[in-house]
C-alpha cells in the first residue's frame, strides 16, 4: 500500500515539484498551501504516514503548525520533517526541538531528500514490525489467540476456516470451535466492531464470555441457541468494561449424529448456503441484534436443512467490503454471486477463498469465513 505524505508549503511550484518526485517513487501525496489547508486535510482524510512542512508561510508558520500537532493525540506521533529555505542554525535547533525528525534545506538535491524520506519510512516500518513481532510473540506464549489453530474433525461434516488480518495487524474477528462430545460441536464466528489492536484486545473478552455461556448451558443439558445467546448478551450488557464496545456473533450447532444444523445470530451477516441447481445462494437471516446493546434482546434459532455436498458460509463484514478504483463499498449480493459462480464452476475451497480474499480489490478490514460442508457418503 502506498504511503501517504502531506506536503505543506505556500510555494505552489515547490509543492508540485516534491509531489511529482514522491509520486514517481510510489508515495501518495496530499498538498496544502497553508497551515489552515493542511489542518482541513488532516480532519477530512485518514492520518498520513508523514508530514513535510515549510517553515515560512503567511498567517501561521511551520513551527506553529508543528506545536499544534504535538498537542493532538491522534497526530503527534506522525513523523514530521521541515523542508525549508530558512536555514539559520537557530531555526534548525528550534525545529528539531519540536520533535521534527529532520530539518532539511531546500537547496539539498531532490534525490537526497527522497533518499532521506525513503530511509525514514523504512526505519518507521522496521520499528513497527519489530514491535508487532514482540507483541505477537507474547500473545503466542500466553496462548492468546482469537483464531484457533485447527478445526475439529467430524464424521459427517468438514469445516474450513480462513481469516486475513488487515494491514498485517490482528483484528476484532474471532473464531472458535467447541466440540462438546462426538455428537455436538459449536461453531462460533464473531466480529468486535472496530479494527486492529483495540478490537483484537476486546475480542478476548467476548470470546471468554461465549465459551462460558456455551459451557454453562451445556452443563445444564441446554443446547438451545437462543438461551445461550440470551445469557451471553445479558452478561455482556452488564459488563461496564464493554459498555460501548459491541460485537456481532454467529453461532452454529452441528449435530454430527443426526446430520442437522441449527443457527442463531446477533447483528451478524446472513448465513449463506449453497445448493445445487439454484440460481443463487440461500440466505438465512437471524433476528438478534448486536451483543451488549439491549439487556432484553430476543434471539431466534433457525434449523438449516443440509444435504450431502451442500455447504454453509459464515462470514464477517470485512469480506463484503471492497475498494474498487478508490471507491469503498459494502456489497453482500456481490459476495453471494461470487461464491455461487465459483461453486457452479466446481472450484475447490482453496480457490474460492483465494478469490474471495480480494485479489483484485483492496482489502479494507479483517476478513473471516467459515465453510461447513456436509460430506457425501463415499467420502466418509
Amino acid at each position: 500500500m502506498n504511503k501517504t505524505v502531506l506536503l505543506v508549503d505556500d510555494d505552489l511550484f515547490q509543492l508540485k515539484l516534491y509531489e511529482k518526485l514522491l509520486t514517481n517513487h510510489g508515495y501518495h501525496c496530499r498538498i496544502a498551501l497553508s497551515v489552515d489547508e493542511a489542518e482541513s486535510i488532516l480532519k477530512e482524510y485518514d492520518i498520513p504516514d508523514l508530514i513535510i512542512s515549510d517553515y515560512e508561510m503567511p498567517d501561521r508558520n511551520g513551527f506553529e503548525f508543528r506545536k499544534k500537532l504535538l498537542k493532538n493525540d491522534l497526530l503527534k506521533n506522525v513523523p514530521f520533517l521541515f523542508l525549508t529555505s530558512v536555514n539559520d542554525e537557530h531555526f534548525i535547533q528550534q525545529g528539531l526541538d519540536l520533535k521534527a525528525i529532520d530539518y532539511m534545506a531546500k537547496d539539498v538535491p531532490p534525490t537526497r531528500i527522497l533518499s532521506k524520506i525513503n530511509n525514514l519510512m523504512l526505519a518507521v516500518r522496521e520499528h513497527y514490525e519489530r514491535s508487532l513481532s514482540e507483541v505477537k510473540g507474547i500473545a503466542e506464549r500466553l496462548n492468546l489467540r482469537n483464531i484457533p489453530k485447527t478445526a475439529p474433525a467430524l464424521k459427517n461434516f468438514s469445516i474450513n476456516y480462513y481469516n486475513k488480518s488487515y494491514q498485517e495487524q490482528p483484528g476484532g474477528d474471532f473464531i472458535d470451535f467447541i466440540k462438546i462430545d462426538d455428537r455436538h460441536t459449536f461453531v462460533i464466528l464473531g466480529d468486535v466492531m472496530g479494527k486492529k489492536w483495540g478490537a483484537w484486545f476486546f475480542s478476548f473478552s467476548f470470546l471468554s464470555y461465549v465459551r462460558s455461556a456455551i459451557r454453562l448451558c451445556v452443563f445444564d443439558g441446554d443446547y438451545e441457541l437462543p438461551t445461550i445467546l440470551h445469557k451471553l448478551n445479558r452478561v455482556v450488557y452488564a459488563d461496564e468494561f464493554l459498555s460501548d464496545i459491541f460485537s456481532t456473533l454467529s453461532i452454529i450447532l452441528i449435530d454430527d449424529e443426526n446430520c442437522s444444523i441449527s443457527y442463531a445470530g446477533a447483528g451478524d451477516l446472513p448465513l449463506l448456503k449453497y445448493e445445487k441447481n439454484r440460481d443463487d445462494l440461500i440466505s438465512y437471516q437471524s433476528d438478534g441484534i448486536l451483543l451488549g446493546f439491549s439487556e432484553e434482546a430476543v434471539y431466534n434459532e433457525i434449523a438449516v436443512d443440509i444435504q450431502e455436498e451442500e455447504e454453509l458460509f459464515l462470514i464477517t463484514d470485512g469480506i463484503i467490503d471492497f475498494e474498487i478504483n478508490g471507491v469503498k463499498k459494502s456489497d453482500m449480493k456481490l459476495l453471494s454471486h461470487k461464491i455461487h459462480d465459483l461453486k457452479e464452476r466446481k472450484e475447490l475451497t482453496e480457490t474460492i477463498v483465494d478469490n474471495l480474499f480480494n485479489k483484485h480489490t483492496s482489502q479494507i478490514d479483517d476478513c473471516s469465513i467459515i465453510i461447513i460442508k456436509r460430506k457425501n457418503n463415499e467420502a466418509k
Partner: protein
Amino acid sequence: MKLSKQTINDVLVIVIENKEANLSKSEQFKEMMFKDIEDGSHNLVISFENVEYLDSSFLGALVAVLKKLLPLKGKLVLTHLNEDIRNLFELTRLDKIFSIESNIEISLQQF
C-alpha cells in the same frame, strides 16, 4: 472528523462532512457526540448526505451514542443513508434499533 452542527427546534442536527466514516474518525466522533450529550443535547439527527462509505468501527460508535442516549430518554435519528449503508443496516438488524429517515425535515418531525 469534520462535522457541521446546527440546532433546530431544540434538536441538534449534525452533518458529517467526510466521505468516509471509518476507524480513523470513529473514536473522535464518539467523543464529540458524548460531549454534546453531556452538554445537554439529547435529541440528535445525524445526516450522512456526504458519506459514501461507513465501516464497522463507525457503526460501533453510532451504536454507542444511541446506547448513551437511551437512559437519558434521548432520541437519535439517522438520515440520508445511501443504498449500500442502508443495506448494511438492514442486513445486520441495525435498522431495528435506529430510527432512519430519508431527509432532515422528516427526521425533525420525529421529535
